[in-house]
């Protein structure tokens, strides 16, 4: 099968959906003339024109608001917020309007809006351009939340997000855009939300990992294989809805669980997944669950310090050997 980078797979998803449905348009900062700061939207302005690829001023609240308004009128906007760190600038629109329009209108209003963004951890971009805060959005009922880790998932999930009747926050990862290449079929496919993917089958311990750290977990699994430890890697792919069943089934099989994510530990994604296992799979556990997450501090800018900050393969190996 042909291989695409994560960025190419995302671009293909946008392009195909724009070709398929005239209601789909893109809006955001530097997505047109510049081609997107990570080149995800590269070439789309030339192909679809300025009516469907709209460059905006630096106005995150208005970008989100315009997306919401256009979606309420029946369009399927894909808004790009350049960095996760900029999401708080429009989080009022996300929290109070995007997530609640369907509910508070008694089901009258549909909001098929996708907000794409990316986190940039591991690139020495400092405390305000490296954050990862998925738990903020996991804590808001009414929005879908997707975090693909591979080119295949990126394309399939983005297409589903654009077609969904509900609004989606779609968090990509800068570190994966060009580094990760993987098989993507040429024929049409989508990936349903709420369906975890077992990225590697194993029998001794389950590692539940999202986005970038899935690749750290896979590297850890490879290394532990040499020591005859069989690791199963479960990638939920979407945090809302969360595929609890696949997680619990895996934990039932292995009896051990490590939860890994790039966000800070306290109140983060790992805490929620850990609670799910505790509520539904406690009796199947042979050891306490371990978390691998970023330390509770801002991301340091220094290349050397950031390396120590970012959770990695070795942290996962240590967590696994601690509980086995």
């Amino acid at each position, binding site marked *: 099968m042909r291989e695409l980078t994560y960025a190419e797979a995302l671009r293909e998803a946008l392009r195909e959906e724009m070709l398929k449905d005239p209601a789909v348009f893109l809006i955001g900062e530097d997505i047109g003339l510049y081609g997107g700061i990570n080149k995800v939207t590269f070439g789309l302005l030339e192909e679809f024109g300025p009516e469907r690829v709209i460059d905006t001023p630096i106005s995150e*609240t208005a970008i989100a608001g315009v997306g919401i308004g*256009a979606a309420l009128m029946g369009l399927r906007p894909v808004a790009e917020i350049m960095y996760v760190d900029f999401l708080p600038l429009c989080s009022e*629109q996300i929290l109070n*309007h995007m997530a609640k329009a369907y*509910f*508070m209108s*008694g*089901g009258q209003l549909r909001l098929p809006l996708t907000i794409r963004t990316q986190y940039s951890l591991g690139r020495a971009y400092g405390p305000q351009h490296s954050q990862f805060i998925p738990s903020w959005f996991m804590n808001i009922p009414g929005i879908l939340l997707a975090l693909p880790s591979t080119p295949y998932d990126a394309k399939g999930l983005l297409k589903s997000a654009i077609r969904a009747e509900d609004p989606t926050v779609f968090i990509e990862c800068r570190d994966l855009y060009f580094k990760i290449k993987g098989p993507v079929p040429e024929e049409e496919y989508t990936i349903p*939300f709420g369906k975890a993917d077992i990225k590697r089958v194993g029998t001794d311990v389950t590692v539940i990992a999202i986005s970038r750290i899935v690749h750290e977990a896979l590297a850890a699994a490879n290394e532990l294989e040499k020591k005859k430890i069989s690791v199963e890697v479960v990638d939920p792919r979407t945090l809302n809805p969360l595929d609890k069943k696949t997680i619990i089934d895996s934990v039932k099989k292995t009896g051990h669980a490590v939860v890994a994510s790039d966000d800070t530990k306290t109140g983060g994604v790992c805490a929620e997944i850990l609670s799910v296992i505790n509520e539904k799979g406690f009796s199947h556990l042979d050891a306490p669950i371990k978390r691998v997450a970023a330390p509770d501090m801002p991301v340091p800018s220094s290349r050397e310090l950031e390396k120590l900050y970012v959770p990695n393969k070795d942290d996962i190996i240590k967590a696994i050997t601690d509980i086995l």
Partner: protein
Amino acid sequence: MPINDRVTEVEGIEPTEFQKFGLSKKKLLQMLETLVRIRRFEDKVEELHIVRGLLIGAAHLYLGEEAIATGVVSDLEPEDVILSSHRGHGHAIAKGIPTDLIMAELFGKATGVCKGLGGSMHVGIYMKKGGLYASAIVGSQIPIAVGAGLALKYKKQDNIVVCFFGDGAVNTGAFHEALNMASVLKAPVVFVCENNQYAISMKASRSVGARSIAERAAFAYDMPTFVADGNNVLAVYKATLKAVENAREKKEPAFIECRTYRMKGHSVHDMLKYRSPEEAEAWKKRDPIIMFRSKLLSAGIATKNEIMAIEKEIDGEIERAVDFAMKSPTLPFEELEKYVYAGGGKT
């Protein structure tokens, strides 16, 4: 007299010009009916809160501001959409949303416009009548209106968007980002600022760092701007005609500042200790409904009996709305989950 080339002060319409502005007897009486419907509805809501204790929660009354929603909506096509604010009962009524459904929403009933899930601050959401959205967060509907306008333009429809908000909203970031975005992307939106002079207790004269709200819009965001006496329904109507024309024909934004006065407190339980009774008294003499009624009478458009018949009919309608709301059921709690995700959380 234009203040400058961008801001136009719009006067009212004299009876000799009624015909020129398309104001038939029928249209004028419809306006009166809407004014009275809003007034009687809001009087009833206040009574239900304060006297009878049957309603709780927020209720930001539109008393004194009736001429704005009435005048603006009188210029719109049924398919034009509006976005409303926390002070939105008047917008909803003017757009033709049935008062029984609005009242049921205030009572939190399943028969309400939003099935009782939105409440007083969202009664303007009723797409069957072009009520697109209502925000309880001051200013946040403004960027959403820009998106709605761009969508209409994208779909090559001739309809437009009207966005209502108060003087308090013009100091939010959302207002500035949205007006700038509307200006650069050319969204067919008419922004209607209902300057009732108070954001709870904060007076607009102390909070707007510009010579006026109208000048802020005109100069900072370069859009045709009109100023109207918000207590004169015909001045509002005339200003809106010009603004709507700009939005519909040129597919560009326009701005209207309607200067008015909030007759009551911010919400029903406001003690109003931040403003003088004399100020309120002076504005009471400029009651938009009394002024319009006198105009219709003196111009010989309607008789006292005709006007009284309208008022009586509306009183009955409001009583029936209360009755309907009180007898309606509440949505079962078990059903709420259905209203969180349109796709049931799946795609």
